[in-house]
């Protein structure tokens, strides 16, 4: 169906067909937009298209910066970290240190440029391969933003957060920033000395040097530009969330690189365009947005995204192989006249496309489904706890006979904001959010508030926005109970270590806080070490192994979740459950098995299925405008070998 439409809409305009044939990424985007429009009535609405724009903005701005680097035959893996670092610097300076906001903004931009400068200097003068230099910066940037923020998100100053808002009530500022940065990129690439040098250096570095270009110096400038763009992207990202997250923009460098390559740039350098990169970023955003609207399973979404990235680039390669020949290359970009004709074709194509899309989008005023539709945005599905919560929610939805769309935010606050935005424009009856971060989710929830869609918070609260109810187990209380259980087991004396969760997450903060409060009652217990293992089993194993090297005589371990506890048990080997008592948190199936086997002394069990179930119940009630309690506490229980049977 999609291809039929494409044919009929292009057959009339020969110019449009030409443009599409000449540009693989653009045709991929058009196909994608048509397919999404046909598959979901909610896709082609003005609001949703603006959403796509906002959702593309951060990736696009990062990708513009990376375009400079890739055109000059380099690579920049550090942009995601640098974006987070710049935003953190801004928020820290303005909020924590009280520096005037405009100086804080300059500081943030300077931070980005400085990171890029260091990259460039390492590559030009230190002769490091770009991959390695920027990989190092990826780690340094992330680390520094954690250091500066102490691992916690910092509120973004109000005046800068307006960048995340809309202009005149409808035009989102991130879209505006993206367009401006795109035009600047096009100008730099096409018209400036440094831009033309990028193509020369990427095309043949030695030839460029022997033609008098100061290649080393220019490379430094190129990477600094990339850092500058990363800083801008970081500021836009943090404004949308009104909070600077030290863990923001993880993995965005790969999205940015993908956008650049989808846009037709070559990783071996010398080729690349601002317009191509822009289209590449749009393809990724349309895809994520459309898959949300289509309620594609969160797991399958990643598969689809990967396949589309490969297809988009494949399409371009095939097209080039088939069409691009010596004379064709010469003819299409020949002198004067044909260049003007080509430009005219582009304009015609753009106008036709805009007219079609605009027309349909006005006609489409969102879906008018009457049945109850719920949206659930889960912070991550990489963790059995949330998978169970999702299962409980789905089971309840089935029972109630409502449609439930589940999305996975992959622990990324801005992806979650996108998903909530999509739920809102889709006209969900009610939305359940399991926040990645309580502060960062605020603006998106406020958007739902504005659209009169009730929001249920699950597991973690939402700050600075209205929620119908909060369904949560009490992490702080759970931490206290864990402290008591472990201390009692050790008889009130002993040395213990703590495996912390991902720095900056609320679960880690609250559980850690509860545990610290609880353990104070036992002066005989000494916490000899405390290290983060990111809620991850493998890291739990590694970190525990390292800590055992330094602290041989440990009597007890508190892990802020079961996964890390299981890793610690692996590290302890035969000592686990015998000479060392391990207490975990969450009561996941694997955790309970370990409790049964005796290697895990206790786990503070939340009841994720129950949590999901209650969240859906409340969401349905809220959708029907029935009264719901402001707070529903899902009980937390300490599971030991004595009562484990009743939890299975």
């Amino acid at each position, binding site marked *: 169906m999609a291809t039929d439409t494409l044919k009929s809409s292009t057959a009339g305009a020969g110019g449009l067909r030409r443009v599409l044939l000449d540009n693989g990424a653009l045709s991929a985007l058009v196909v994608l937009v048509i397919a999404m429009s046909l598959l979901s009535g909610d896709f082609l609405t003005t609001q949703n298209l603006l959403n796509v724009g906002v959702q593309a903005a951060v990736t696009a701005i990062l990708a513009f910066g990376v375009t400079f680097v890739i055109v000059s035959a380099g690579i920049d893996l550090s942009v995601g970290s640098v974006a987070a670092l710049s935003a953190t610097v801004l928020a820290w300076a303005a909020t924590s240190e009280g520096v005037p906001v405009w100086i804080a903004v300059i500081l943030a931009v300077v931070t980005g440029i400085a990171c890029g400068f260091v990259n460039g200097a390492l590559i030009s003068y230190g002769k490091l391969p770009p991959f390695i230099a920027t990989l190092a910066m990826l780690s340094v940037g992330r680390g520094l933003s954690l250091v500066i923020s102490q691992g916690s998100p910092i509120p973004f100053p109000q005046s800068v957060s307006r960048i995340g808002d809309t202009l005149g009530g409808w035009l989102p500022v991130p879209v505006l920033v993206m367009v401006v940065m795109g035009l600047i990129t096009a100008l730099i690439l096409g018209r400036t000395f440094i831009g033309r*040098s990028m193509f020369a250096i990427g095309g043949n570095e030695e030839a460029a040097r022997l033609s008098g270009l100061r290649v080393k110096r220019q490379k430094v400038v190129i990477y600094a530009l990339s850092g500058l763009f990363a800083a801008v992207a970081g500021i836009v990202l943090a404004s949308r969330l009104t909070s600077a997250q030290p863990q923001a923009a993880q993995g965005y460098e790969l999205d940015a690189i993908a956008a650049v390559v989808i846009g037709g740039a070559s990783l071996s350098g010398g080729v690349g365009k601002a317009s191509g990169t822009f289209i590449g970023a749009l393809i990724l955003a349309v895809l994520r947005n459309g898959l949300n609207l289509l309620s594609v399973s969160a797991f399958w979404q990643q598969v689809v995204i990967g396949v589309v990235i490969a297809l988009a680039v494949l399409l371009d390669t095939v097209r080039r192989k088939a069409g691009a020949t010596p004379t064709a290359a010469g003819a299409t970009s020949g002198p004067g006249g044909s260049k003007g004709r080509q430009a005219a074709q582009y304009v015609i194509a753009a106008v036709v496309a805009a007219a079609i899309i605009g027309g349909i989008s006005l006609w489409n005023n969102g879906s008018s489904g009457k049945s109850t539709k719920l949206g659930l945005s889960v912070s991550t599905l990489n963790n059995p706890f949330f998978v169970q919560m999702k299962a409980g929610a789905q089971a309840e939805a089935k029972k109630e006979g409502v449609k439930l769309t589940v999305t996975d935010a992959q622990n990324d606050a801005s992806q979650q904001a996108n998903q909530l935005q999509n739920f809102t424009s889709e006209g969900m009856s009610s939305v359940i959010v399991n926040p990645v971060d309580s502060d960062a989710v605020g603006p998106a929830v406020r958007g739902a508030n504005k659209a009169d869609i009730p929001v249920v918070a699950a597991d973690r609260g939402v700050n600075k926005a209205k929620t119908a109810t909060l369904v949560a187990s009490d992490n702080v209380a759970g931490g206290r109970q864990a402290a008591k259980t472990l201390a009692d087991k050790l008889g009130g004396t002993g040395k213990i270590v703590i495996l912390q969760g991902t720095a900056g997450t609320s679960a880690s903060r609250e559980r850690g806080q509860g545990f610290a409060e609880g353990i104070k009652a036992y002066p005989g217990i000494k916490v000899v070490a405390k290290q983060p293992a990111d809620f991850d089993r493998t890291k739990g194993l590694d970190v525990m192994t390292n800590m055992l090297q330094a602290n041989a005589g440990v009597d007890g371990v508190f892990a802020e979740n079961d996964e890390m506890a299981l890793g610690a048990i692996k590290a302890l080997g035969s000592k686990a459950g015998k000479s060392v008592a391990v207490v975990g948190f969450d009561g996941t199936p694997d955790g309970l098995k370990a409790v049964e086997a005796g290697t895990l002394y206790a786990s503070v069990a939340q009841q994720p299925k129950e949590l999901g179930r209650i969240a859906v119940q409340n969401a349905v009630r809220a959708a029907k405008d029935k009264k719901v309690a402001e707070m529903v506490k899902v009980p937390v229980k300490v599971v030991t070998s004595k009562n484990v049977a009743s939890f299975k």
Partner: protein
Amino acid sequence: MSNPEERQAQESAGPPEELLRIEGIRKTFPGVVALDSVDFDLRRGEVHVLLGENGAGKSTLIKMLSGAYRPDAGRIVVDGRETRIHGAQDAERLGIATIYQEFNLVPDLTVAENIFLGRQPRRLGMIDRKRMEADAEELLRRVGLTVSPRTRVRELGIARLQMVEIAKALSLDARVLIMDEPTAVLTSEEVDKLFGIVRALREDGVGVVFITHHLEEIAALGDRVTVIRDGKSVGQVPASTPEAELVRLMVGRSIEQQYPRERPELNTTDAPLLRVEGLTRDGVFHDVHFEVRAGEVVGIAGLVGAGRTEVVRAVFGADPYDKGTVEVAGARLPRHDVNAAMAAGVGLVPEDRKGQGLLLDASVEENLGLVTLRSATRAGLVDRRSQRVAAARMAEQLGVRMAGLGQHVRTLSGGNQQKVVIGKWLLADIKVLILDEPTRGIDVGAKVEIYQLVNELTAAGHAVLMISSDLPEVLGMSDRVLVMAQGRIAGELAAGEATQDSVMALAVSTAASPATTPVHNEVEGSRGH
């Protein structure tokens, strides 16, 4: 001295066995007819020269035989049977081996591994190194290469790489050996050696397709010549055909003079434009000194590895040096600073055109504007209109044959590529142009055009310093010839007194005895007349 007809008559009683026949081959690429009705045939034990200007279709033809391209029309007959060659495997099975100008060797593998790449003898699933190396040794003996099969290919010079390629072809039991300009990068000694090997192969009954731009090699080695022009075979003549006739067939017109040097009147009292003194880089070149005056062409001859390229790169500032001075118009240039050299009016056309001279996937316009990019920049913005106008003017002036300024230089012929490299310097108003192997791999017609350019430059009062391994070119175009040997200037000869013999004698002289008088009995230049 034997001419081909005689030799054939002596060697075989019956007609020599035909290995390969091509009839009416046609190949088009979208928008271009690369080949249009080409006929060609190859017999056992002959060297059949393929002659034609760059872009005439020689490469397309041999790619058809090696399986890289498929013909649109026409027949390929091998051993009397019509065949299709659909890839390297097919070619290998038919006993056709091709040695391209760019070698297909893996630098970090050993000689033996390269020869048997993909076909390593195996025992119990493991590579049988002993046997592989013994076999390789035998093959190396046949091509007269005295290196250990365990040497890494990276350590070999270009001539030896070629020998390894030939050994690889022999290991495939090739009956048809296609050689694409094998002599382009060799010194005359190495060429002699190569000819010896090719002759031996011919004795063994191998049919050799030989592509060269050096006309003098045709009579020395070839049996028959097929001339290709604009994608058509325009004639098949014996190798003894006079050069002037070959040139006429090849370019479709006769070329009056191969080396049209017009020597301007030199005012010897003028200060030199370029003065190099005591230039030394330890272990590479020593105490190099010379001068180039306005209006003069100074040639640098010598064997490959004598340090010629290294010296001019140091003069241009592309590489550092340890001692000595470089002066342009009396002002001393800072060491290792390309921009200072450029500012003083020095330009370099590097030896490796594709690797160092061009942005292959950029347009003619971009390549021509590369050197002037900075001077065309105002407040960070490049004046692309003036750049385009200048590029168009230069392309017109140089007669660059292209579809348009937007054409990628990768798709230009070698001669036109070289014009673009030279053109970017002409746009920059240079005073001293250094040409490193300016006509390597360029056909006769384009060569003459480049020589004309050199004439125009010197007539305008500029100076040209030219490295060339093509002795007739150095002798024909230079006003003075510097000969380098082992990193030193072994001697200097005036245009009048320089001969191939005198140059070669200096080129092989040892550093210990820098000969200033020609020694005639050591080596004979084998190229040219």
